[in-house]
């Protein structure tokens, strides 16, 4: 059989016989990718206004929406704490907002169990928008109208970016479940 079609015993996750996913990879990749998302905006210098979308939060949303049940409900606490250390927001702002987002998405999911692309995008867009606006409120600076106008480009970029993030999360999910470990 293999001489006719060498891929006959494989699927998108690799060989089917005698192999299984690596537990370490399967459980750590979601967290690692969210932490990287928190880290990435810090490496860009923007002295004028916030332009980078909150990538850490968007990765969290992506994993939460694409793979319900993979991240525990309390995942916002540790992941948000890491984001707070780097994002420049007062410590605690992301812990609070990420935890609230996890609860909110859980409620949306319970209310509308049959989801699709558009509904996912809308709920992610609503979550991102309220996250960015609330983050401005909690930033510890005096609130001005200028801040709001200046956050509009960031908001737009973040909302438009969600489908890309979702595809990326789906790709990471396939990578996560690759059958790498050889079972004796």
């Amino acid at each position, binding site marked *: 059989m293999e001489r006719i079609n060498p891929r006959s015993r494989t699927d998108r996750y690799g060989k089917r016989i005698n192999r299984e996913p690596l537990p370490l990879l399967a459980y750590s990749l979601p967290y690692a990718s969210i932490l990287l998302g928190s880290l990435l*905006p*810090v490496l860009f*210098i923007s002295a004028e*206004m916030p332009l980078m979308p909150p990538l850490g939060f968007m990765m969290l949303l992506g994993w939460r929406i694409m793979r319900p049940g993979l991240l525990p409900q309390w995942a916002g606490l540790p992941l948000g704490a890491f984001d707070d250390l*780097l994002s420049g927001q007062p410590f*605690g702002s992301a812990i*609070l907002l990420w935890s609230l987002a996890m*609860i909110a998405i859980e409620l949306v999911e319970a209310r509308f169990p049959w989801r699709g692309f558009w509904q996912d995008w809308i709920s992610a867009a609503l979550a991102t928008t309220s996250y960015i606006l609330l983050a401005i409120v909690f930033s510890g*600076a005096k609130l001005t109208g200028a*801040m709001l106008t200046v956050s509009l480009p960031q908001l737009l970029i973040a909302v438009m970016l969600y489908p890309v993030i979702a595809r990326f999360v789906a790709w990471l999910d396939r990578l996560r479940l690759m059958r790498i470990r050889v079972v004796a």
Partner: protein
Amino acid sequence: MAPPSSRRAGHSRKAQYSVFTGYVLAAVGAVIGAVLLAISLWRPAAFSDVRGIAVDAVEPVGQVGAEARSESSGVVGTIRDYFRAGSQNAQLRKENELARLRLAEAEAVIQENKRLKKLLGLQDQELAPVVVTRLVGSTASSTRRFAYIGAGRLDGVRVGMPVRSPRGIVGRVLEVSSNTSRVLLLTDSESVLPVRSARDDTVAFAEGRGNGQLRIRLVNLGINPIKKGDLFVTSGAGGYYRPGVAVAIATEVTNDGAVARMVTDPSAADFVAVEPIWQPELVAGTQTPASTELGAGGSGN
């Protein structure tokens, strides 16, 4: 797509409890976050140590990013310059002539300055920078405008020191950890800096507006002497920044001052220098309550 059925509790007590526990834990997380947030809004320096450790750990990645950034901007600049070479050449020749004249004038001014300073008995001292380093990162997704530099306590950086690029002031050190420091950029809405106009001696404050611009607020209200294109330099008031360093250029005149743009663009700056606090005694003085006598061991900052 419906969520996986394992998450629907059904009649199973165990499943019901685990769903409920999930909600409780998430709510507890939110409450912990709210408490921490309240603490750090009340005392902004509360978690600076932990933050410092995290940024220290990330700093090597930031250094790589900084190098890549400086090289890529160089490539784009080179291509752009190639296309504009002809017209630029003519323009530069004209500017060069003017600059030569101005240089002669400036030398005369320097001579006069020296003479006057000698009369006053002032010493002409050049401030050597504490350390020259790179910007390794910034808070690009937050409304607050902070930057991280790749030098910290071990390099002699202390809280309050001014940070400048070759073109002008970038900001002021806000938090220091062992290998990195957090810089409050001029454009942050909490940043205030005493300035004066380079043309005349109009004194003002340059405040960040949080949208990339600075607001120049005149100290003496009345007729607004600012014109579009005026350069503002540090005035030296307050004791942090030494006087005469470029800060901003007025782009729009308003009733009580002007809207200005930073002279230096930190994202284009290759290296930044951390300078010592210009007059530490003065800074200590402003932080000491009027009732306490200076030098009597008050706030030893």
